[in-house]
């Protein structure tokens, strides 16, 4: 700025103003990180006051409202931003301001570093440890849902859960899911649902957003509130790559609200099919068992010992009959031998009897008392004469002794 001036030859203000304006104009656009101190929105234009993050330094800025609206995160007083701006000098009142062309949610890097520090502190306390994770009910009796009123996340959870399990019983609590009040609202909703006996799983669902949008779900108080819950909590925040601290402390992390719906209720159709198949298999197994046992029983019953119990008696009967036959035969032989003996004796008896002699013409003379007469001298008056076929009774009329052969007589 080689403006040659002295007390005697001052430059007019307009020259200075113009020179300063030209000098500032040559600065060009720069990237600036700052905090929004004030925000004044007018039709078409917006006037801001930017404040340094540490030093007590502020500067005015302005931009078209479209620049404000194009920012991914809401630009509110207190928000940290990075702006692309060109310093401009306004001649009529000699003010310096930044002509903002782009606003980005600020300090994402710083924010993430802060989150990382919080995460490590809470992890060191053990809040994220797997041993604290509670299992989800297989079939929930009551599903608590914390989500934004009429949000896409609410619709995603309800619709997808009911597609899988039409009777899914939901207890929905709407809460502010964005902004500085959000964490407190979500804590209140989660605690209310945790106290509800009918609720046995709680889902916190929200659609995607910037890191700043999801900041409430990394809130330390919320993390501790969820950790203290006796009911299992499912976090379903944003999209796959988003990992607020709620994801870490939750008992189950769902990548999206739709994914949460799939995790909390079983697929009714698939479950029914599985049950039917298992029932079919158990029934077949039982039937096979009964059939196998029936075959075994049939086999035992068909064995002769049971099937034809008569064989028991038959065997004994045969023994008895055999014995009887043998005894009969033995007796028979004994009898016939006796018979033979008798015949033999009879023959002998007959041989010895005088009958044959009588038949040849001999006769036996006997006294009435049966005494056989051998001498004419002994003969009584009445003599019985035995012939072969009977006997005669005769009377003695004469006695003729034989002449004595012995000369002595």
């Amino acid at each position: 700025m080689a403006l040659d001036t002295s007390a005697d030859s001052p430059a007019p203000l307009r020259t200075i103003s113009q020179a300063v304006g030209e000098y500032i104009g040559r600065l060009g656009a720069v990237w600036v990180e700052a905090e929004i101190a004030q925000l004044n929105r007018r039709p078409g234009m917006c006037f801001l006051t930017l404040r340094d993050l540490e030093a007590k330094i502020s500067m005015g800025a302005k931009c078209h409202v479209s620049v404000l609206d194009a920012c991914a995160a809401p630009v509110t007083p207190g928000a940290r931003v990075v702006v692309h701006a060109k310093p401009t000098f306004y001649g009529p009142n000699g003010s310096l301001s930044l002509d903002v062309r782009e606003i980005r949610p600020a300090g994402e890097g710083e924010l993430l570093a802060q989150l990382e520090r919080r995460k490590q502190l809470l992890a060191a306390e053990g809040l994220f440890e797997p041993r604290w994770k509670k299992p989800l009910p297989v079939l929930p009796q009551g599903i608590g849902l914390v989500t934004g009123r009429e949000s896409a996340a609410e619709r995603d959870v309800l619709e997808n859960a009911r597609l899988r399990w039409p009777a899914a019983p939901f207890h929905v609590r709407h809460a502010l899911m964005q902004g500085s009040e959000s964490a407190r609202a979500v804590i209140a909703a989660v605690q209310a649902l945790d106290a509800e006996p009918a609720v046995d799983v709680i889902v916190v669902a929200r659609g995607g957003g910037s890191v700043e949008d999801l900041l409430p779900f990394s809130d330390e108080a919320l993390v501790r509130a969820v950790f203290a819950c006796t009911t299992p909590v499912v976090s379903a925040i944003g999209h796959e790559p988003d990992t607020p601290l709620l994801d870490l402390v939750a008992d189950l992390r769902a990548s999206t609200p739709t994914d949460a719906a799939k995790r909390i209720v079983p697929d009714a159709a698939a479950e029914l099919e599985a049950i039917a198949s298992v029932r079919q298999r158990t029934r077949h197994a039982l039937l096979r068992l009964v059939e196998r046992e029936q075959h075994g029983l049939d086999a035992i019953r068909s064995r002769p010992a049971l099937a034809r119990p008569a064989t028991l008696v038959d065997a004994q009967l045969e023994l008895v009959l055999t014995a009887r036959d043998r005894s009969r035969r033995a007796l028979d032989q004994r009898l016939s031998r006796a018979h033979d003996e008798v015949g033999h004796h009879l023959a002998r008896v007959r041989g010895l009897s005088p009958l044959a002699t009588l038949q040849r013409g001999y006769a036996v003379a006997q006294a009435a008392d049966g005494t056989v007469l051998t001498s004419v001298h002994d003969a009584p008056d009445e003599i019985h004469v035995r012939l072969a076929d009977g006997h005669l009774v005769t009377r003695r009329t004469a006695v003729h002794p034989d002449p004595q052969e012995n000369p002595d007589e």
Partner: protein
Amino acid sequence: MSETPEISYEQARDELIATVQRLETGGTTLEESLALWERGEALAKICQTWLDGARQRLDAAVQAETGSED
């Protein structure tokens, strides 16, 4: 189905097998054999009762299911 037998199926089956084996081995008096055979018959009946009952319960379950599905 008659009342549930007082001994289990497995008990009845095992005793039945043992009984038949004794019968087949022999060496028993006629009176003992008859007693064994009568016991065998009774055991076989118990086994059959169990098996019939099991089958009936299966059939009833299947029928109840097909009935509820209609």
